[in-house]
Structures are given as structure tokens and as C-alpha cells.
């Protein structure tokens, strides 16, 4: 490999984009460098389920032609990107990490993918994930786990472990994730990268294979706050194909990331998202970041959100309930895996056998939970109550945002754990998302960014910034200020410390 390639893969997307637009490097060179890196390391990382090399090279050449012809290019034109395998992409297998969708090629692009294409970005492939985005470790992928580039024996978080790992392994400078309960933010935290869950309705869900429709949200994954902002502005904005999409201007996230200022900002520490259950090293790095923010001129206040204690319980009723309905269509009738169709079984039996064969244990567990929660006679006690908790959590947020402009907490209670450590203990696994779930329930926005390595295990720690709905720009304002203060302290971004593979 030429040395220029090694440099290209470590560049921020913003730098690559500028270089491509100035003609200093071609998109084709950048794309080839990343494809070469994938070939080199992905056997060990397993971030990708599908690499669309030929299509990527063709797309890159097209961008280069456009540039040579003097066409006006977008802010991220020619920059490669990895897409979580839960978003449809015309003609490219979309599995959602499940056997039941093996071989299915969607006949249409998701809006997110369409916007990436419209922005002349180069899609490298589809990334690994927990089956149907159910999990916090990517171990529930039917195609085998993804490994954390910081320590290949550890999980990269989940469900978007593939997207986060692809960034940390320098296989892609940007990636798309989706976040239903923390699936962008928790992987970002444990891989030392940046991940943003935009305001619900901020990014179109059209073509995002639904896990829990009222919670799902696609968002940017990057190695820096500015790169995340650039990607955010490409994919966000109203989409008439998604009725829940917000018809309002996208907050100026790029401007906020460029400005990066916390002076006079009130930052709320959420009392309930700290203390017992959080790893000491996580709390230590978090507290140091709080002091840093204060030093930058922020006013730190403590806020209480008492109903957050019920968030996990409510989430594990609402999510399975919606998922049980969303995943009903995977019945072997129209696409994907079909089992038992040998002429001896009824249509109901074939549906049942296909689902039995095609779904993994965690998916089955949640479908059963959800089916139960929606059943006649139980609906009010489970789904109905959970919706009330959801309202209370939203009120807690509203009250907290009266006192603070943004709220902060550790993103995840622990650093990356070992592959296999929690896979047989669903409750322990669910606790990974304790700090990220309230935002999904309330529909506002949040970012995770790295604030250091935990002293005991030397693994990345993430800090979560939460802002009110459609105030996504505040995430970038605070995140960028904190990131540059930390960069000043360390002399580089945290990701530079990731071991070479």
C-alpha cells in the first residue's frame, strides 16, 4: 500500500471533501484507499456485511468527472461512507443482520441513501448490526459479531457496531447508523467515535426497516463533531414520504460545529444518569469533562428527571410491542427465507416455520414480549402504562430544559465488554442503554462523543449531550467546544490512539 493511501484513510471527511473539491486528490483514489483498507482488516473486524466495491468505484469516477466538468459539488462530494444494513439500497442485499431477509434485494432506495447519492457521496457497503437492531453488542447478528478495533476481543456496541467499528478501523470516514434506544450513541461511546441521534422526525425513516417506528431515527456516525455535522446536514430535512418527518428547516448544525462555544450556556447534569451501576473509570472521565466545560465558561447545574428510572421498563414494552407488529411481514410469503414449503404444510405452518427458522433468539424474545404486551386484557397494564411513562419522561425533559440549555450524562455505564460476556443475559445487555433510552422515548436529540480512555482498561468513554427537539445545533455547539478543548489537551483526537490493526 502506498503511503498516501494510509494518510487518506485517516483524514477527516471535511478534509477529504475539501481536497477532492480542490482537485488535490480524486474521489477514486480516496475510495480505492478505503476499499483496500476494508480488504486488509475487515476479516478481523467484520464491520461490513456487504462491500459494494464496483458501484463505489463507479460512483467515485462519476464525482471526479463532474468536478472536472466544473459542476458544483456538495460539501461531502466524493467522500466514502458506510451504511448500516437496516436502510434499503436499490438492488443491494439488505439483511438487517437477519437470516430471514437473506437474499432480498430492495427495489428502492431509502431516503437517507437517496440523499447520500444526491450529495455525490460514495457508498462503500452495508455494515453489520444486531438482528433487526435488537441488541447492544452486534453479537445478535445472524452473520457473526463485529469486533471492536480498540480490542478485537470486545464488542463494538450495538446495534450499529458495524458502522462504529468501520470508523474506528479507518475503513470508512463516515457512516450512517440508526438509533432506537442508543444504537448510534452507545457504539460511538465504546469505539471512541462521534454519533448523533437527531430529533425524531429530523431525518426521514422512509426505507429504514422499522424496529420500533415511534423510536427509530437514523443519524450520522463520524470520527469528529464537524464531520458528523456535515453528514447530518446531508441526510436531514423534511421528506413527504415519511408522515412523521418534521416540515421545518434543519437546524444549522454545521455552523454550530464550526462555532463550538459553551460560554454562558447552562449545562444540566442529570442526577438519575450517574452513580450506582456506572463504571468508576467512566464516571472519572465524565467528571473531568464536566470540569473542562466549566472551565470553558459553561454554567453547570444539577437537574433531576425522576421518571427516567422507569424509562428502561417502558422502553422494553413499547419497543417489543411495535416490533412484534413491524416484524410480522417477515412471513416467507413474498420475499426472504421460506421454510417448510414442501406441499405438506398449510400456509400458516409455512409462515410459522419460516419465522422459526429465520429469526434469532433475541428477536423471538422481543416478538413474544410485544405480542403479550398488546394482548387483549393486558394492553392497558403494559402498553398503555408504558405510554404514560413516556409522557412523564417528556415532561421531565421539558422541566429540565427550563433550567438548562443542554443536559449531559455518560453515554453508557461501562466501556466495551468482552464478546460473549453478556450475550446470555438479556437484562445485563439491556442495561447498556439505560442512559440513552430516555431521549428516544421523548423524541429529542442527543450526541455521544469521546472524552478519554477509562484508566483501568484503557478503553474509550463517551459523554452524552442531550438537547430539546429541533435544537440539534446545540449538540454540535457543545460537542465541538468540548472536542477542541480535549484535542488541545491531548494534542490529537482520541481516535488517533486506537491500536493499529
Amino acid at each position, binding site marked *: 500500500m502506498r503511503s498516501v493511501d494510509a494518510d487518506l484513510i485517516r483524514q477527516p471527511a471535511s478534509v477529504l471533501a475539501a481536497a477532492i473539491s480542490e482537485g488535490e486528490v480524486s474521489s477514486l483514489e480516496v475510495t480505492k484507499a478505503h476499499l483496500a483498507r476494508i480488504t486488509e482488516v475487515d476479516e478481523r473486524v467484520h464491520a461490513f456485511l456487504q462491500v459494494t466495491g464496483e458501484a463505489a468505484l463507479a460512483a467515485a469516477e462519476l464525482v471526479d468527472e463532474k468536478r472536472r466538468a466544473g459542476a458544483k459539488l456538495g460539501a461531502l462530494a466524493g467522500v466514502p461512507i458506510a451504511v448500516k444494513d437496516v436502510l434499503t439500497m436499490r438492488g443491494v442485499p439488505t439483511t438487517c443482520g437477519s437470516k430471514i431477509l437473506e437474499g432480498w434485494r430492495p427495489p428502492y432506495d431509502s431516503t437517507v441513501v437517496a440523499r447520500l447519492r444526491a450529495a455525490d457521496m460514495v457508498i462503500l457497503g452495508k455494515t453489520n448490526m444486531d438482528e433487526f437492531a435488537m441488541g447492544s453488542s452486534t453479537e445478535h447478528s445472524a452473520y457473526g459479531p463485529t469486533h471492536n478495533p480498540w480490542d478485537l476481543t470486545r464488542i463494538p456496541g450495538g446495534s450499529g457496531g458495524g458502522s462504529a467499528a468501520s470508523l474506528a478501523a479507518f475503513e470508512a470516514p463516515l457512516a450512517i447508523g440508526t438509533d432506537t434506544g442508543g444504537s448510534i450513541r452507545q457504539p460511538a461511546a465504546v469505539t471512541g467515535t462521534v454519533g448523533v441521534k437527531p430529533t425524531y422526525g429530523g431525518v426521514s425513516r*422512509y426505507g429504514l426497516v*422499522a424496529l420500533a417506528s415511534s423510536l427509530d431515527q437514523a443519524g450520522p456516525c463520524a470520527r469528529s463533531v464537524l464531520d458528523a455535522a456535515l453528514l447530518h446536514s446531508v441526510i436531514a430535512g423534511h421528506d413527504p414520504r415519511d408522515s412523521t418527518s418534521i416540515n421545518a428547516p434543519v437546524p444549522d448544525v454545521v455552523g454550530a460545529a464550526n462555532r463550538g462555544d459553551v460560554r454562558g450556556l447552562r449545562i444540566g447534569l442529570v442526577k438519575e444518569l450517574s452513580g450506582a451501576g456506572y463504571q468508576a473509570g467512566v464516571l472519572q472521565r465524565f467528571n473531568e469533562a464536566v470540569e473542562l466545560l466549566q472551565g470553558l465558561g459553561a454554567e453547570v447545574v444539577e437537574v433531576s428527571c425522576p421518571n427516567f428510572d422507569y424509562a428502561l421498563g417502558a422502553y422494553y414494552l413499547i419497543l417489543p*410491542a411495535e416490533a412484534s*407488529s413491524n416484524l410480522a*411481514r417477515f*412471513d416467507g410469503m413474498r420475499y426472504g427465507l421460506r421454510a417448510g414449503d414442501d406441499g405438506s404444510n398449510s400456509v400458516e405452518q409455512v409462515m410459522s416455520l419460516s419465522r422459526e427458522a429465520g429469526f434469532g433468539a433475541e428477536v423471538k424474545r422481543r416478538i413474544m414480549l410485544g405480542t403479550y404486551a*398488546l394482548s387483549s386484557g393486558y394492553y392497558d397494564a403494559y402498553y398503555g402504562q408504558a405510554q404514560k411513562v413516556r409522557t412523564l419522561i417528556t415532561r421531565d425533559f421539558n422541566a429540565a430544559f427550563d433550567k438548562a440549555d443542554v443536559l449531559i450524562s455518560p453515554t453508557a455505564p461501562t466501556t466495551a465488554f468482552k464478546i460473549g460476556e453478556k450475550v446470555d443475559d438479556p437484562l445485563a445487555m439491556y442495561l447498556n442503554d439505560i442512559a440513552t433510552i430516555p431521549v428516544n422515548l421523548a423524541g429529542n436529540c442527543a450526541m455521544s462523543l469521546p472524552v478519554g480512555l477509562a484508566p483501568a482498561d484503557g478503553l474509550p468513554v463517551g459523554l452524552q449531550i442531550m438537547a430539546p427537539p429541533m435544537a440539534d445545533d446545540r449538540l454540535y455547539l457543545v460537542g465541538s467546544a468540548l472536542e477542541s478543548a480535549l484535542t488541545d489537551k491531548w494534542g490529537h483526537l482520541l481516535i488517533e490512539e486506537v491500536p493499529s490493526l
Partner: protein
Amino acid sequence: MSTNHETVPFEEAMTRYEPIIGLEVHVELGTNSKMFCSCSTTFGAAPNTQVCPVCLGLPGSMPVLNRVAVESTIRIGLALNCDIATWCRFARKNYFYPDMPKDYQVSQYDEPLCTNGWLDVTVATDEGPQVVRVEIERVHMEEDTGKLTHAGGATGRIHGADYSLVDYNRAGIPLIEIVTKTVIGTGSLAPAVARAYVTELRDVMRALGVSDVRMEEGSLRCDANLSLNKPGEGWGTRSETKNVNSLRSVERAVHSEIERQAAVLDSGGRVIQETRHFNEDTGRSTSGRSKEQAEDYRYFPEPDLVPIAPSLAWVEELRATLPEVPSVKRARLQNTWGINEFELATLVNAGAVELVEASIAEGVDPAAARKWWTGELLRVANERGVELSELPVTVGQIARVEALIADGSLNDKLARQVFEGVLAGEGDVDLVIAQRGLAVVTDDGALLAAIDEALAAQPDVAEKIMSGKIQAAGAIVGAVMKTTKGQADAAKVRALLLERLGVSE
């Protein structure tokens, strides 16, 4: 299988039991595009050609509500005197079936768009027309499912079929469901009330222009719920009869279900809560799916759609677009046409009001229009077991025939033969006249010859007429009509006859 000893004759059943009916009517809205996507709704296209990721329920696809469908539903609600919800949501009705692309149906559950309405219907009784108010519980929106065709097997049902084909062209077509409250106290009028209600509903939909309401194409479907109880006792268990595909069948289905349930109860049996399948040929129903264990559809609010919150201003805007209510319109027409209640009821029951109105608009005399639609044409419709509107005859053809009668080219008898030809598919009015040679004999010479022949054959009659008994002329006119095979103008024959005999009236 139903056999005769399992039914009690209707009149006898009515001496012991009181029926309670409830009707669920599904109407396919005539929107250009489907409920949640832009696919066409045209009937009869090649299978699976009017589909897209949304109506196929492909992973990742999302619904976007059709505004026209909401408007149509609100207008229907207003026409049925309903309250329009200021805020309501869709729900998912979850169940696995291959005609459902998503294995759930997007429908409205506990938050329907329209509630608490009514519709007055008129039924004919021995004591004259009677108005019955049918109360409406709700009008809600839902998406239609795909259409399954089961090949092989004896029953035409999915179980036992060799294979099944599914056409998703219909999946996602906007449907509205109109559910009545229980209709009590109609006694032996129950079957007629059921029919009159569906007829009236159809007329309302037609007047609103929201659907083509063709029962034979399934754009209007009726499920009839019925239970029987002894006077003074609690309500019985109800059955739900489906596959009722014509207005006539609505009446027959209720009628036959009363006879069946009466027999079950008479023998000390228990009516089972079930879906029954009506058979048009036998006029009886067969047992379908049991509803004893109520299916759990696990309804919950559809998270992919936002709530519908029609503003008052919008609702009033839509109210202003409502056409004249069919019953009000009928009262007006009764007045304009100068007909009595009974004559109006005859027109209504025959489904002839709009046809008569349209004929008059084409220039046909009101009395003549009524005469044709409730006379000869109705007789043929009944004979064929179809609706008047389904007969292959147009109001333009009636206008043409009437014009030919007026100018003496046709008489009544010939006109009937013209319609016979038109209804038999022999072509348009003038073609039938030409091919059948139905023109009135206008040649005075030929008529006079026939008159002379008749006078010669009945000299006594000729005497009577000449002696002033002019009413006796009928016998000679009749004879002339006979020799000319009806192709003469009777009035003209009479005038020629009197002239011949030198008699004046």
C-alpha cells in the same frame, strides 16, 4: 349443510321471535390513488401491476395518507348526520394472512373519524310507506387487502386448495366501513329494512360521488348481523353473514337467516357466534369461521402516521359541498312530478328514482318515464335478478322511443318490442326497429282496406256505430290492430273508421 327441516317458514318464525339486525357496509372510495401511496385504483388491471413498495408492505416503506380519502370520509360522515372527530388516529389490526402485505391492516379502531349518525329509510308496508331511522354508530377508514384466488380443492377456500394466487392491486385501496347501531323493533320488516338501508346508503354514496358503489365489483360490500330473541327476553347470539353481493341478497340473507336461527332455537339449540357465507344460488348460507373465541387483533395506534385533526373550518368547507340528501331530493321530486307516497315508494323500491330523473332530463314525459322504469323494464330486471341500473338500456334510448311514439312512428306495443330487442343486445333503438320491421303502418290505403275487411266481418258492429254507439268502435279497431300485427296507430285507425262510417264524436 342447510336442509329444509332446519328452517322455519319466515311468517311462522315471526310469530315467535323478534329479530335484531346490525349492518356493516364497506365502501371502496373512488379516489384516483390508493390510501397510502400513489398507485392507481382502477378496477380490472392485470394482477400485481398497480403496486409499489408501500402497498406491498416492503420492509422500510411507509404510508402517507391520501387527503381526498379523508375528505370523502368526512363528507360521508356529514351526509349521514355524524359527529366528525376533531382528533383521531389510525390503528394497526394485527393478524397473519397472505392477502395482507404487512400482516397488519391499517384501520381505525377506538378513534373513528365519524360517529353517532343516522339515516332514514323508507320501506313499503301493507299500510303504506313507513320511515325507519337507522342509527349509525361509526364511519371509519381502513385499507383494503389483496385478493386471493384459490386454485384446486373443492371449496374454493384456502384450505384444501392446490395453490393460491394473490393480487395486491386491491391492497391499500381506501375503504370506509359504516357500522349501524343495533336496529330493533322492525319485526317482519327486518329484511326489507336491511335492503332499504343499503339501497339508501348506496344512493347517498352515489350522490356524494365518493364511490361507484358497485356491489358486483365489490366496491360496496355488506355484512349482515342478525340475532333472534323471544319477545320480552334478552338478546340472542348473533351471526354475521358475509358474501352478500346484491341488494336483493341483503334482503334474502336476512330473511333466510331468520328462518335458520328460528329452527335452531325451536329445536332447543344454541345459535353459534360465527361468520356465515351467503350463497347467491341457493339463497342460503353455510357456516364459516367461528367467532366464539374472539380473535385478538392486538390493536395499537399506528406509529407511522400522524393523527388526523380536521379543523372546524375544513369540515364546514366540506359540508358546503354536500349534495341534496337523497330523501330530501325524493320529497322534492314527488312534489314536482305530482305523484303520491305509494307511487314514490314504488320508484324507490325499484331503484328507479335517479333513472326516471335522468330520463326526464333527456326530455321524456315524467309519466312515461315512470311507466317504462317501473313497468316493462322493472319486469325484465326482476326476471333477470338484476338492478334496474344494471339493465343494458340507457335513458337516451328511452328518450328516442318516446320521441318515436310522439311522432306516431311507434305505438306502445311496438315500443315494448323495441326494448325487448335492445335488452336482448340487438343494438340501438333505430337498428332494432329496422331489423325487426317495427314501424307503425301509416299507409291510409292499407289501413282502410283492413277497416273495410273488419266491417264486413262484423256488420252488426258497423250498424251499432252508425246508430250512435261509438264505443262499439273498439271491436273494429281491435280487429284492425290484429290484422296489422299491432303495427298501426290505434287512434288513427279509430279516426279513419269513424270517417269511413260518417260518424263524428
